[in-house]
């Protein structure tokens, strides 16, 4: 029962991040929103794996947590005019 409650709260958080991504005046604001929404998504996937009761599903969030910062770093390098 409580898992549904948690999932709803995290869903509201994802919607708020999307609002900043659509509105954000500069590209840096949008990149910050992307970085936040990936971290929130990792927590979302772990709770979802607990709802489905499958141990294998944790691998997806493991891959997310290890790889998603690459996108943020590449965008940051481009903003810095370096790549």
């Amino acid at each position, binding site marked *: 029962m409580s898992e549904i409650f948690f999932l709803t709260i995290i869903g509201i958080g994802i919607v708020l991040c999307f609002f900043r991504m659509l509105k954000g005046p500069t590209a*840096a604001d949008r990149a910050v*929103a992307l970085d*936040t929404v990936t971290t929130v998504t990792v927590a979302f996937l*772990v709770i979802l794996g607990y709802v489905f009761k499958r141990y294998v599903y944790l691998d997806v969030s493991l891959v997310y947590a290890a790889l998603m910062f690459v996108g943020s*770093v590449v965008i*940051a390098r481009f903003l810095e005019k370096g790549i």
Partner: protein
Amino acid sequence: MQIVGILITGIGVLFLLLGSYGIVRLPDVYNRLQAGTKCTTFGALFTIIGVGIMEPSWFWKTLIIALFILLTNPISNHALGRASRKSGIPLCDRSVVDKASEFEQYKGKV
């Protein structure tokens, strides 16, 4: 054990929501980085460890996920902050002090 896990997960979820709310509310890029990538680091850490406590056979793998988040999140935070300073985004008008120009002179001295 179940109740402790639910409590810790609840604290983490609350901080995730607060971090997302801070993204919408705070005035400029640097303050959004403060709320957005650190309240969420803390919240995700607590959420994942809480799920590990609720299901004790998952504990070690959730520990590894939490370790990865703890290691990679400061790096992307630092990269985004440095990039937005180099690309010339100004501070908001409520700021008190800006010592970035004073910082640049250390580069020549060393």
